[in-house]
């Protein structure tokens, strides 16, 4: 059952990244092929702030990271959000104003994805980097199931973030506006909702969660310019399997993808990890085009 533990950790990271994908898909109505680069940008900004503060990444009890990393991630969330808002302002906003088709937006996002990946390479170099040198020390939580304490912390952090998002969407005015805009943008405007503000906050929330995803992935694996791009297919698969239009479905989809990828690794198909999530997505699309939780009004 080791693969279940590994799968849940991977699912936690995918779901943090895929939530932004899901929110953009539902509110701005396009598949954001640049979501992976938002994840990577967040990771590299976190690295930048860790370097800037010069306090390492700290530690809390058995964890190999602590407040210095968490604070850096906080700053990175702001920086990444700003970056994303600038790109939206320069490119996507203008395309929206021109009533560009959904496909044009996807194409633009595809271009942003390539540019982002290569800008990271230009600035930080193409070689893998680590936040710190840490040797994971696994503990046995169940007979023959070993996990690193940091992995547990990641799952907890992801869980808390999702809970916070849930409260944000259901208890705050902006959250209500987001759900309203996702359902019917015209009716939202007719309710006095400034959809431009909703779009801004959608980018900010999505980018912040993606930053967390990137930093955590960077912490337990490494930072590479392609780190986000290689998460793109699993994130899309989570979105589609869960049923677009339903953030909770995306979480379920992420769990599904996380478990199946680590299962694939467990049975020796690690080279085809990415393809596995994709094939599952196709299979589910064929049987249930609306996804697992889709179609529920």
């Amino acid at each position, binding site marked *: 059952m080791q693969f279940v533990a590994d799968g849940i950790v991977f699912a936690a990271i995918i779901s943090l990244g895929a939530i932004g994908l899901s929110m953009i898909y539902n509110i701005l109505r396009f598949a954001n092929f640049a979501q992976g680069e938002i994840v990577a940008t967040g990771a590299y900004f976190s690295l930048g702030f860790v370097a800037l503060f010069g306090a390492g990444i700290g530690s809390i009890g058995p964890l190999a990271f602590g407040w210095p990393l968490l604070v850096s991630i906080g700053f990175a969330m702001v920086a990444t959000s700003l970056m994303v808002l600038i790109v939206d302002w320069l490119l996507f906003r203008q395309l*929206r104003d021109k009533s560009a*088709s959904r496909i044009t937006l996807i194409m*633009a996002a595809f271009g942003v994805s390539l540019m982002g990946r290569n800008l990271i*390479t230009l600035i930080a170099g193409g070689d893998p980097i680590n936040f710190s040198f840490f040797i994971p020390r696994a503990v046995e939580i169940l007979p023959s199931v070993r996990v690193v304490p940091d992995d547990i912390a990641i799952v907890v952090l992801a869980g808390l973030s999702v809970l916070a998002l849930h409260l944000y969407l259901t208890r705050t005015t902006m959250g209500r506006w987001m759900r309203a805009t996702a359902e019917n943008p015209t009716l939202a405007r007719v309710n006095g909702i400034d959809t431009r503000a909703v779009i801004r906050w959608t980018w900010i929330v999505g980018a912040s969660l993606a930053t967390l995803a990137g930093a955590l992935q960077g912490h337990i694996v490494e930072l590479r310019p392609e780190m986000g791009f290689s998460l793109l297919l699993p994130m*899309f698969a989570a979105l589609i399997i869960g049923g677009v239009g339903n953030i909770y479905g995306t979480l379920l989809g992420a769990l599904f993808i996380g478990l199946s990828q680590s299962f694939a690794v467990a049975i020796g198909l690690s080279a*085809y990890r990415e393809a596995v999530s994709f*094939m599952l*997505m196709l299979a589910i699309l064929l049987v249930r085009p609306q996804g697992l939780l889709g179609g529920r009004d």
Partner: protein
Amino acid sequence: MDALSLLSFAAFFLTFASFFSLTCLGLNMQWGFTGLFNVGVVGFFAVGAYTSAILTGPAYPDTLFGGFGLPVPIGYLGAIVTSAIAAFVVGFVTLRLREDFLAISTFGIAVTIQLLALNLQSVTRGPNGLYSLPKPLSGLSESNLVDNLLYLGICVLCIGAVYWAFEQMVRSPWGRVLRAIREDEQAAAALGKNVFAYRLQAFVVGCAVMGLAGALYANFVGFISPQDFLPIVTFQVYVMLIVGGSGNNLGAILGGVVVWALWSGSGAVIAAVLPPDFQTQAAAVRIVLIGLVLALMLLYRPAGILRERHIVSREARMSPQSRPTR
């Protein structure tokens, strides 16, 4: 630079551009005329390249399958057939999906094909690639230049044939249905057209041409590896088509040449400016530049250099943001 080496450079450049122009033509059938957003272009290009390499290449000591050493034209034909079959399978599964799901699925297919090329070592030799692929007509002359000119001739012939065939096709009633589907799928369906069948046909035809382009590439370069088939290629081809003018076959060919010139030209300039230690950075700058070209085209000249001729304008489409009821 003397005239001969200039000619030799031009032949080399145009041959490379022609691989892209041909791929661009294939994509134009899908995206330009039918509105299919295929993000897996490089995957079908790779299928063609590997097919021809396996059919025409020598027997390698470390593969279990391949090394048939067949004549190159058979490699080309094989490439067309296998990429068409791959397109049929993929299209059958994905073309019923919504346009953005299609984009995600075809993207996933390209990734999968690349993973297969990388990991099916017994067929593709994985990251080591397939080498010593034969080049047709190369025995006729001692001169490398003549070889390259002859190969360029083959490529131009292929482009000419595909161009001619596509022009006939898009002008036929069949082509009109494709455009109708692109502009308004529901209306086309309401006219009793089997939208799925038409899309599948356009998809298969386009991918077959991409496969041919891949085969031409493989036998010209003589060596292929998974590194040649990264998602950037798909992106380049889209930029070419958008720059050239999607929906215009001549524009597709032109876009391939123009953008390839920009691409290789900027590469030469950057290589001259940056010290050799900064190869990674040089590649990155180039990709950022091509991304900028795309963004600017989308923003300021979405119709491309050569606009589509006498066909209903695309601006008539409603934006997804405002969905007026009537």
